[in-house]
């Protein structure tokens, strides 16, 4: 399996994601945002976290219109997998690959802490290593993670089962207390209609080693890698 991690000016989680993918068994290449094409044979595109373009204008707004995003759109339209984490989720929303927008956290604070998520479905390329309803322990670090969409979009996301993760407590209960950024319906991550694009605010790539606190994030990368037959 081949992954391409897109690097924008101001990305800072590309190393973490590269490591997570490598340790799950994927070949990974970094791709600079000014490229017009993805490496031949790319199966998965990852937009990592960070502060692309210093969050100028709106988070992800400028990166969402970078040259490489045309290639990412083409890849997604062909059914190719795309994962956007944190700033990557903001970029996916700004680029039109996912609906809605990430607004300033409702309490106006940058939040940085461990966070449980409830896995809403485990029949996608991103979550097959988890159980449906499982609470996974990852972390969040963002100032603009307050998922907002119009009523019609929200209804469609819920109706079509496109919510990937919700903020929850350790037992997997979706509570108001667990929703620290004010996201509508406690949404922490969403899929595209064809389930091949996932955007999420939390960082699974930070929880892949017992040494640094846990391994619940591994499942996401292992799911992705296991979706592809191993190269000979």
């Amino acid at each position: 399996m081949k992954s391409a991690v897109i690097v924008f000016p101001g990305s800072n989680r590309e190393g973490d994601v590269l490591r997570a993918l490598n340790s799950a068994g994927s070949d990974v290449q970094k791709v600079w945002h000014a490229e017009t094409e993805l490496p031949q044979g790319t199966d998965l595109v990852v937009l990592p976290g960070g502060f692309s373009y210093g969050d100028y204008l709106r988070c992800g707004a400028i990166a969402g219109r970078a040259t490489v995003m045309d290639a990412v759109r083409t890849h997604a339209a062909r059914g190719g997998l795309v994962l956007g984490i944190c700033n990557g989720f903001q970029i996916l929303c700004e680029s039109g690959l996912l609906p809605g927008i990430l607004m300033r956290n409702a309490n106006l604070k940058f939040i940085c802490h461990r966070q449980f998520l409830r896995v809403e479905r485990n029949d996608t390329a991103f979550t097959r290593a988890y159980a449906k309803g499982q609470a996974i322990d990852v972390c969040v670090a963002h100032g603009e993670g307050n998922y907002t969409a119009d009523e019609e979009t929200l209804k469609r996301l819920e109706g079509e089962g496109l919510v990937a993760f919700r903020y929850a407590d350790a037992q997997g209960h979706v509570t108001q207390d667990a929703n620290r950024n004010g996201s509508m319906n406690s949404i922490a991550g969403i899929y595209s209609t064809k389930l091949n694009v996932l955007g999420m605010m939390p960082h699974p790539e930070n929880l892949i080693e017992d040494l640094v606190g846990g391994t619940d994030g591994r499942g996401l990368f292992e799911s992705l890698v296991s979706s592809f037959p191993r190269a000979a």
Partner: protein
Amino acid sequence: MKARVTVTLKNGVLDPQGKAIEGALKSLGVEGIDGVRQGKVFDIELGTADKAQAESQLKAACEKLLANTVIENYRVEIA
């Protein structure tokens, strides 16, 4: 030619920054303020002297980048 683009949040979109500013004004003792909504202003220099062309260029700028029309409205004024 000069132009000013104003981008504002649509009605009904929660604006926590505006709320915080409103609260700060209250705590400073500034009276009579019933609500604050924060927006953005862009002062733009255009090469053209043709107003119609300027209008279409500015519309493109707003639709493609300056405003996220999911949550924001924009207004263009040409000097």
